[in-house]
């Protein structure tokens, strides 16, 4: 028994040691303001997704839960700032050509979403979401942050994810001054290696609207019918 426990412990330790550590990129921006005694202070607004790499929903394979993660900290001390009243607009472009059109009205968008504090994690805020499709996502965060002395800091910032090869660049809809970036949503199949041949059943799972769902439904109906006929014959 001791041997089993030891083996499991060693296995867990080895697994944790060799497990790949995924990058956790976020965009950040420093916002300066004047506090009540006339001195300059700054906060750091950090924006990204709760998990990287960001992958779109693939039923049965990946849940697509990549919540918006907003972290607000004092720039100099890195102390978390817990007093913020924020809202969020979110945008989605299906592909790069639509994104590069420079026309934000072409995006699928939702506005006025409430930003909630994350329980038990000071300075962290979120909007929960499940990303249902690969593509280019962006967020506008706006509202007020209250600094330690009660100074109100107005926030109105927008930052899109970084399409492949465009990390840390100023996007057409981003407010200026951002550094870094966060990942856009890829399809799970983009990570497959070697690539799965076309027509392999697994492909059905990559798209909610796939024809293969109908194939699956057809299969269930046929199997059910055969079972029903056998039951009737037995009686």
């Amino acid at each position, binding site marked *: 028994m001791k041997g089993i426990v030891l083996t499991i412990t060693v296995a867990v330790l080895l697994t944790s040691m060799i497990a790949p550590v995924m990058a956790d990129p976020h965009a950040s921006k420093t916002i300066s303001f004047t506090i009540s005694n006339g001195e300059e202070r700054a906060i750091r607004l950090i924006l990204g997704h709760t998990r990287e790499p960001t992958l779109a929903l693939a039923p049965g394979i990946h849940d697509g839960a990549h919540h918006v993660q907003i972290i607000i900290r004092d720039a100099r001390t890195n102390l978390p700032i817990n007093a913020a009243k924020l809202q969020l607009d979110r945008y989605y472009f299906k592909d790069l050509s639509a994104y590069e059109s420079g026309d934000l009205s072409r995006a699928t968008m939702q506005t006025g979403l409430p930003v909630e504090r994350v329980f038990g994690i000071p300075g962290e805020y979120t909007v929960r979401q499940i990303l249902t499709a690969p593509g280019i996502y962006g967020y506008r965060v706006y509202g007020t942050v209250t600094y*330690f002395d009660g100074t109100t800091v107005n926030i109105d910032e927008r930052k899109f994810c970084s399409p492949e090869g465009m990390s840390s660049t100023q996007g057409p809809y981003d407010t200026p001054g951002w550094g870094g970036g966060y990942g856009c949503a890829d399809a799970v199949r983009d990570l497959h290696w070697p690539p799965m041949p076309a027509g392999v059943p697994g492909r059905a799972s990559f798209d909610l609207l796939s024809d293969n769902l109908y194939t699956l439904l057809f299969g269930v109906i046929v199997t059910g019918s055969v079972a029903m006929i056998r039951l009737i014959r037995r009686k």
Partner: protein
Amino acid sequence: MQPGAVLPIYDASPNFVSGHLLLRAPCEPVEGEGDDTYRPLVTVIAGHIDEHEHNTYVDKVPLYYIRHASSGDSCLWHAHIPDPLNGGAPRVTDLTLINLTDQPVEFNGGDIVVFNVFNVLGTIGNYYAQQDMMQLPTDIEHGNPVYNLNDEDDSNDGLGFIE
């Protein structure tokens, strides 16, 4: 504690932390504040003392004088570490008492220093070098800034946290 003597209290390197400091120590009136505000005879400094002096930055800790818990020659102070409103080093890995006077300081029975750590806020890395901030313990003069919320002088209240 002899002139120039140093008593390290805490070292969290390579992490910088937030916390609360309590100091009870021999005290003297703050000049210009009458006799109702007192500062310690030793100086409390905080910041980061690195192997490289160019990544070393320490500063005097802003203290809040607690008159109603002080007695005789032994006074009590509180401090927020770090204090984003009243100054001091913004990122603290090290806390130290240092005698920057030219006289020995004799402590009283019951004098104490306590540092209660709240959170690790990050890894210090080369933060001070990157910010081009360098200040060594030898660059500092005696006397912490001291605030007093319990006298009639509003100019020494400092900035308080609003919850």
